[in-house]
């Protein structure tokens, strides 16, 4: 006796990404989320730290590759390691702090001790492991790590192309971004962390979305002086979005601030006059003051590096997927190593003004994202449109696809990379 089995057409995540739209189930399907953890986060370069977060020998930071807990540490020889945060005995995490300094990583359960480089140094009562456990084979699992201009990435993909190749056309923009600190080396100065009830890709899209700025961030614009209002009125300006390949994109909003070491003869903005005076009174030369003040508000672009890190005007934005419907975001403040206190303080105050849980910008972004997630449950079928600007593309100086500043060029770039990873 035969019976008919109903076959349900299951689209793969790759099928759900079209050139100009993506299916709303990408925001909520838990199976797709699990697939992404493997096919995206385990198969590319994932940002885990800025070098300055682990500045000294013994410094460490904990991070995630997808949902996998890792430790980023700097050993006594000053090398950076990224390692699985998992004891090789029975699997407890050996490091629970957000960041700190230590001489060794010791498992709290049975006291196995690992060096800063992850090597297994000592364990209590080793006689019971005689001939059956070689310490050399039981260090913390090392993850391949490469660094570009202070940005520390790790990959779980064995044959992953070198980081510099993966970054490709984005390298030039990383280098421009690192002029943030007015002539001083970039250093991170703490971060805001918050979670929102929505998918990580909603945030990924938002960093390359200029279209929302005047509406969602109206209250921020209201809160700044006239001069700053003009700076932030960029939708009709000369900005653009450029597809940099490999899912990366750059959104230039304020062209004059792309290179923070150019245009140093421009008059100092009124809103930074007090800062300029303070720096000058401290004894900094006019040239130094100009360079610091030009950089204090950040650069004029958002660089979106697929999949989890953006260099966004004045800060780093790191996104950490928690579940299909929940994401954690870190807004990492940036200052200068050795820079004048007044400069770094101003950087922090500016960061506090817009970013983070009580910023004048982020909570309104959060409202929009949450409502995208909530709306995505409406209807059996439904597409997220990412076609804005498709009929008006051009080619950039560097030979890349380019669209208007308020086009969705960057989103299409990210989703095409996503599609290629999810197709494997």
């Amino acid at each position, binding site marked *: 006796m035969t019976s008919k089995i109903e076959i349900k057409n299951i689209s793969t995540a790759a099928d759900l990404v079209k050139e100009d739209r993506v299916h709303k189930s990408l925001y909520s399907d838990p199976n797709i989320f699990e697939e992404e953890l493997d096919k995206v986060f385990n198969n590319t370069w994932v940002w885990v730290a800025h070098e300055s977060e682990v500045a000294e020998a013994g410094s460490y930071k904990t991070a995630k590759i997808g949902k996998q807990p890792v430790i980023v540490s700097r050993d006594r020889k000053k090398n950076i390691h990224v390692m699985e945060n998992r004891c090789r005995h029975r699997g407890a995490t050996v490091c629970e702090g957000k960041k700190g300094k230590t001489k060794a990583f010791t498992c709290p359960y049975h006291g196995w001790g690992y060096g800063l480089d992850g090597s297994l140094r000592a364990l209590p009562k080793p006689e019971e492991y005689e001939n059956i456990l070689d310490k050399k084979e039981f260090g913390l699992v090392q993850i391949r790590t490469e660094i570009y201009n202070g940005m520390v990435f790790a990959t779980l993909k064995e044959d992953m192309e070198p980081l510099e190749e993966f970054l490709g056309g984005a390298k030039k923009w990383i280098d421009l971004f690192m002029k943030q600190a007015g002539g001083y080396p970039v250093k991170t100065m703490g971060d805001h962390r918050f979670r929102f009830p929505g998918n990580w890709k909603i945030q990924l899209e938002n960093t390359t979305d200029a279209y929302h700025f005047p509406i969602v961030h109206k209250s921020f614009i209201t809160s700044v002086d006239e001069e700053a209002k003009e700076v932030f009125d960029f939708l009709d300006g000369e900005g653009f979005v450029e597809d940099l390949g490999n899912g990366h994109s750059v959104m230039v909003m304020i062209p004059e601030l792309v290179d923070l070491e150019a245009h140093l003869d421009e008059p100092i903005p009124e809103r930074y006059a007090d800062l300029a005076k303070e720096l000058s009174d401290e004894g900094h030369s006019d040239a130094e003051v100009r360079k610091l003040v030009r950089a204090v508000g950040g650069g004029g672009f958002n660089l979106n590096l697929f999949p989890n890190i953006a260099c966004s005007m004045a800060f780093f934005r790191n996104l950490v997927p928690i579940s299909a419907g929940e994401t954690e975001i870190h807004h990492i403040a940036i200052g200068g190593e050795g820079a004048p206190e007044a400069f770094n303080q101003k950087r*922090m105050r500016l960061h506090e003004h817009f970013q983070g849980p009580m910023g004048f910008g982020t909570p309104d972004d959060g409202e929009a994202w949450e409502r995208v997630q909530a709306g995505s449950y409406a209807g059996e079928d439904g597409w997220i449109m990412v076609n804005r600007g498709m009929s008006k593309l051009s080619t950039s100086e560097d030979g890349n696809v380019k669209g208007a500043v308020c086009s969705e060029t960057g989103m299409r770039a990210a989703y095409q990379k996503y599609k290629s990873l999810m197709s494997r």
Partner: protein
Amino acid sequence: MKLDTQLLADVSAFLNVEADMLDNKEYSQWLDLWVESGLYIVPVDHTVTDYANNLNVAYDDHEMRELRIQRLTSGEAVSTQMSQKTVRTLSRFRIIDDIDGVVRVRCAYSLFEDNVNGLRTYPANIQFKLVRDGGSFKVVEKVVKIMQSGRHLTTVSYLF
């Protein structure tokens, strides 16, 4: 140990008024509770004491307090349009000291937010510096150490 229960009563009455104003969004009255040089601080890391040289969730001087209230009341901020309702309670008041007219007090605090995504809770330890003002006080400093601020919070469009 001698307990100054009169001071405790006065301080806790004042702090309950401050909290009530925030729950009822009596923002301009709340601004009047502050000395102009006062600082409203919500730190990220609770062990920090040098707030100016560290990143905070909020670090509001007089100007920022006014700008923030303007933002919360103008209707321009999409996250305020569904009128975030809060109810908060304060307890465990302890006068730390009362020197040269400045009273330092700390207390326990719970704020509950009626969010569309569910009830949100924010326990915190708060440290106040108050100066006497007539029969009442003015706020010189309010430091709200919210539990989990170093791990992760949520986005918030009201005042702790």
